C-alpha cells in the first residue's frame, strides 16, 4: 500500500492521459476566435454564414515593369489553377443554363433603347462588327439587339498597376472550408512565393493560418519561459528535485482532468481557455508551498485550515462567476474549478505520503521596512477613486486577436486596387426562400452597390410583369429582317421568347445558390458598400455579420451579469475573509484593495477589455489567499516565504503571458504582473510578527 501511494501520482497522470485521448479531447479545442462567443443565435448565424460564404478569393500580384511581367503572372496563375480547388474568377457560381433560362427576368431592360430601336439598322451594325472582327464575334442570340444589360464576354482578368506590375484574382471553391484546406492553399502559395520574390499573394483565409501559427509559437515560448521560472524556483532556490517532479505531475494531471471535464461540458473549447486555464492551474502550487513549508508533509500534520480557506474562497469566487452568461467565462471558470480542486486534493491528501523532505533555503530575508496598513488603504482608495472615471471598456474583440501587420498591409494593398469601395458582408433572411429572394432584390434596388448571388434568381413579380406580347412582337420583327441583312435564317428564332415557367423556390432547384437554413429562417448573404452599411443594417430582413458588432452586443449583455456576479463574488470574499481573520479584517482587505488600485492604473493608458476585467477578478481571488495567510495569528516567516515562492510560480503561470504578441494573452499577463508586483509590495511592507 505504501509503495502504491508512492507511485499513485504517476498512475493518476497516466490514467488521465488515457482518458484524455480516448475521449477525443484534442478535437474539442478550437483556435477560432468565434469559439469565445457566447452560444446563441448570433454565433449560430455566424457559423452558417461561414458555410455559405464560398466566394473566397485569392489575389496574386507580380512586381515588375518589363515586358515579361504579365507572362510571369500568367505562369504563376497557371500553376495555381492546377490545384483542384482553385478556379478562374470567370467561373460564376451561377449555373449558365439557369441564367440562360431566366435571362430576360434577370437583366435590366433598356426601355430607352427599345423606344428608339431600328431593328434593321441595329442588325446591320452587328453584321459589320462580325465581318470586321479580327477573331470571332460572340453574338448573343438570346439578346442580339443588346436590349438587356450584360457583361462583355472577353474581359481581361489582369489588372495593370502603374509603377508596380500586374494583379489577378482567382476563386477558391466551396470545399475550401476547413483549416486543413486553408493550410494546403496557404502552403501552395508560400512555396510559389519562395521561388520568386516578385510574387505577392493574399486571401482572407491566410489570417486563419498565420494567426494560428503565431498563437502556437507564442504558446510554445510562454511554456518554455514558465518551465524555466519553475526550474529556477525548485532546483536553484528550493533544491528539491523530488518536489518538482511530483508538483509538475500533479499540475499536469489537474490540467488533463480539467480538460476532460470541460470537453465533456462544452462541445467547443477555446484555445484561450486552455492557455488561460493552464495558467490558473499553477495557482495551486500555492497550496503545496504552504503545506510544504509549514511541515505538513514531513510531519503529516492534520488539515491546513488557512489553505482550505484560501482554496474555498478562490473556488467559491470562480463558482459564482461561472453563472456569467458568457461562454468564455463559463469555460474558464469550469476549467479553473476542476483544475484547482483536483490539485488541492492531491497536494493535501496524497503529498504527505510521498515522503518529501523539507529543505531550508536562505534566500528570503525579513523586511525591515514596514508600512502602517491604514496608509496602504488610503493610497488604494485614492487610486481607485482616480481611476474609476477613466475606465473605458473596449468591445472590439479583434483587438484581442493576433496583430498580423504584414498580412494587414497586404490586405490593404490588394483592396486598394481591386475592391476600391470597401465592402462588408451582411446576413439576409426570410421566412421562405421566395421571401429571401425578394429581400435580396429589394436590397439591390434600394442600394445599387450591393451584390448578392440571389439577384440571379428571378422574383415571382418579375415573372408576372414580363410583357410576353411585347417581346413576341419584337421577335417577329427581328425574324423578318434577319435574312435580308445577311444573317442565317432562323438564327434569332428563339430570341426574346421567355421559355420557362416561374422558378420553384426550393433547395433542389436553387442548389447552386448560397442559401442556408437556421431554425425556421432561410438565410443568405449580401456584400454591401460600407457607405450604405449603417442604413442597410436597419432593414428588417438584415442582420449584421460583423464579428465585432456581435461580440459587442453579447458582451454588453454579459457585462451586466458579470458586474452583478462580481459584486456577489466580492461580498463572498469579504465574508470568507472575516471568518478567517476576524479582527485583522481591514489589514487583510488591503490585499484586495491594493492590487485592484494598481491594476486600475492601466485604465489611464488603455481601454480595459474583458480579459483585463476577468484577470483582475482572478487576482482578487488569489490575493485573498495571501490576505488570509498573512493575517493569521500564527504567522511565521515560512508563510512569507511560501507566498514569495507561490508568487514566483504564479508569475511562471500568468506573468509570462506579458511576453505574448497575442493581445488576449498580453492583457492577462499585464494584469497578472501588476497584481504580482502589488502583492510583493504588500508582502515586503507587511509587519512580520516575531
Amino acid at each position: 500500500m505504501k509503495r502504491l501511494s508512492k507511485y499513485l501520482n504517476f498512475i493518476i497522470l497516466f490514467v488521465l492521459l488515457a482518458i484524455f485521448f480516448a475521449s477525443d479531447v484534442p478535437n474539442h479545442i478550437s483556435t477560432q476566435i468565434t469559439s469565445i462567443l457566447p452560444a446563441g443565435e448570433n454565433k449560430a448565424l455566424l457559423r452558417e454564414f461561414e458555410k455559405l460564404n464560398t466566394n473566397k478569393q485569392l489575389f496574386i500580384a507580380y512586381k515588375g515593369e518589363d515586358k515579361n511581367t504579365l507572362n510571369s503572372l500568367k505562369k504563376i496563375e497557371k500553376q495555381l489553377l492546377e490545384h483542384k480547388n482553385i478556379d478562374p474568377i470567370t467561373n460564376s457560381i451561377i449555373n449558365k443554363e439557369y441564367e440562360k433560362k431566366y435571362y430576360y427576368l434577370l437583366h435590366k431592360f433598356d426601355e430607352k433603347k427599345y423606344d428608339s430601336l431600328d431593328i434593321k439598322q441595329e442588325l446591320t451594325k452587328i453584321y459589320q462588327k462580325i465581318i470586321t472582327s479580327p477573331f470571332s464575334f460572340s453574338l448573343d442570340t438570346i439578346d442580339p439587339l443588346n436590349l438587356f444589360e450584360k457583361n462583355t464576354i472577353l474581359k481581361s482578368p489582369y489588372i495593370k498597376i502603374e509603377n508596380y506590375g500586374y494583379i489577378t484574382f482567382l476563386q477558391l471553391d466551396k470545399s475550401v472550408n476547413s483549416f486543413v484546406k486553408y493550410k494546403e492553399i496557404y502552403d501552395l502559395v508560400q512555396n510559389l512565393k519562395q521561388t520568386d520574390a516578385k510574387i505577392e499573394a493574399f486571401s482572407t483565409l491566410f489570417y486563419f493560418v498565420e494567426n494560428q501559427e503565431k498563437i502556437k509559437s507564442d504558446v510554445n515560448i510562454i511554456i518554455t519561459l514558465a518551465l524555466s521560472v519553475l526550474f529556477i524556483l525548485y532546483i536553484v532556490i528550493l533544491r528539491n528535485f523530488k518536489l518538482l517532479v511530483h508538483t509538475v505531475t500533479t499540475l499536469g494531471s489537474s490540467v488533463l482532468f480539467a480538460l476532460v471535464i470541460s470537453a465533456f461540458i462544452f462541445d467547443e473549447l477555446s484555445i484561450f481557455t486552455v492557455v488561460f486555464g493552464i495558467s490558473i492551474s499553477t495557482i495551486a502550487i500555492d497550496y503545496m508551498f504552504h503545506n510544504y513549508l509549514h511541515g505538513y508533509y514531513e510531519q503529516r500534520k492534520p488539515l491546513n485550515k488557512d489553505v482550505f480557506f484560501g482554496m474555498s474562497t478562490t473556488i467559491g469566487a470562480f463558482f459564482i462567476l461561472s453563472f456569467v452568461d458568457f461562454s468564455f467565462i463559463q469555460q474558464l471558470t469550469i476549467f479553473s474549478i476542476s483544475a484547482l480542486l483536483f490539485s488541492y486534493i492531491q497536494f493535501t491528501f496524497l503529498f504527505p505520503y510521498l515522503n518529501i523532505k523539507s529543505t531550508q533555503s536562505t534566500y528570503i530575508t525579513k523586511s525591515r521596512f514596514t508600512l502602517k496598513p491604514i496608509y496602504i488603504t488610503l493610497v488604494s482608495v485614492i487610486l481607485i477613486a482616480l481611476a474609476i472615471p477613466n475606465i473605458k471598456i473596449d468591445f472590439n474583440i479583434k483587438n484581442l486577436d493576433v496583430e498580423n501587420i504584414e498580412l494587414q498591409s497586404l490586405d490593404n494593398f490588394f483592396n486598394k486596387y481591386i475592391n476600391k469601395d470597401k465592402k462588408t458582408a451582411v446576413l439576409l433572411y426570410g421566412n421562405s426562400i421566395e421571401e429571401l429572394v425578394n429581400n435580396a432584390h429589394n436590397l439591390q434596388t434600394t442600394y445599387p452597390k450591393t451584390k448578392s448571388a440571389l439577384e440571379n434568381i428571378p422574383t415571382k413579380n418579375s415573372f408576372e410583369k414580363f410583357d410576353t406580347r411585347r417581346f413576341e412582337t419584337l421577335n417577329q420583327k427581328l425574324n423578318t429582317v434577319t435574312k435580308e441583312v445577311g444573317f442565317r435564317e432562323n438564327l434569332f428564332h428563339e430570341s426574346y421568347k421567355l421559355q420557362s415557367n416561374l422558378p420553384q423556390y426550393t433547395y433542389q432547384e436553387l442548389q447552386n445558390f448560397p442559401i442556408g437554413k437556421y431554425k425556421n429562417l432561410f438565410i443568405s448573404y449580401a456584400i454591401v458598400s460600407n457607405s450604405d452599411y449603417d442604413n442597410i443594417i436597419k432593414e428588417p430582413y438584415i442582420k449584421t455579420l460583423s464579428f465585432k458588432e456581435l461580440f459587442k452586443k453579447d458582451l454588453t449583455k454579459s457585462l451586466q451579469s458579470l458586474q452583478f456576479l462580481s459584486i456577489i463574488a466580492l461580498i463572498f470574499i469579504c465574508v470568507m475573509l472575516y471568518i478567517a481573520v476576524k479582527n485583522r479584517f481591514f489589514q487583510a482587505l488591503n490585499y484586495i484593495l491594493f492590487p485592484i488600485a494598481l491594476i486600475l492604473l492601466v485604465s489611464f493608458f488603455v481601454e480595459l477589455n474583458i480579459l483585463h476585467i476577468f484577470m483582475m477578478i482572478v487576482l482578487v481571488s488569489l490575493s485573498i489567499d495571501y490576505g488570509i495567510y498573512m493575517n493569521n495569528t500564527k504567522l511565521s516567516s515560512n508563510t512569507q516565504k511560501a507566498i514569495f515562492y507561490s508568487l514566483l510560480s504564479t508569475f511562471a503561470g500568468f506573468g509570462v503571458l506579458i511576453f505574448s504578441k497575442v493581445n488576449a494573452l498580453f492583457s492577462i499577463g499585464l494584469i497578472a504582473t501588476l497584481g504580482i508586483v502589488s502583492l510583493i509590495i504588500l508582502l515586503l511592507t507587511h509587519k512580520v510578527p516575531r
Partner: protein
Amino acid sequence: MFKISLILLIAINILFSKEVLFNETKYIYALDNVFSKIGTLNIEESKVTLHYKNSDKNIIYTNENIQIITKQSTETFTHEESVEYNLFFQLVLGVYTNNTTLLNENFTIKNNDNTTTLLPNEYLSSVIENIEYEKNKDKLKYLKINFVNQDRITIEEIE
C-alpha cells in the same frame, strides 16, 4: 559612321524580319457564310505588323502595346484592352517562332504525328474550342481555329 550604322541596322532588320503572306478563310456560323482575305504578317525582332489586302489598316503588335493605324488615325491599346488582337498575335508569333512558352500561357499543347493541337485554358475555353496547325519546316501549312460558337478560321501560308 552614320552610313555604316544605317547599313548595319538595315542588315540586322533584314536578318531578323520575316514576311509571311497568308490566306485567311473565316466561316461565320451566324451568317452561314465564308469570307476570305489575303494578309501579310511582318514578323520583326521587336514587333509584328498585320495588314490585310484592300484595307487601309495596319495593326502593329509590340511588347508594350497594340496600335491600329489608319490613314486618319492611330489608336493605341494595352494588351489587356485589346484582348482579341493580343491573343491573335501571341498565337501567330508562338506558332511561327515555335515559341512553346508563349503558347503555353494560354494553351495546352498536344502533338499528334504532323499536327499540333492547342487546347485552351479555362479562361479561353468559353470562346475557343481548340486550335489545330501543321507546319512543314518553317512554313505553316494551315492553322485552324475552332470557336465555341461554331465559327472557324483557317490560315494558310501562300507560297
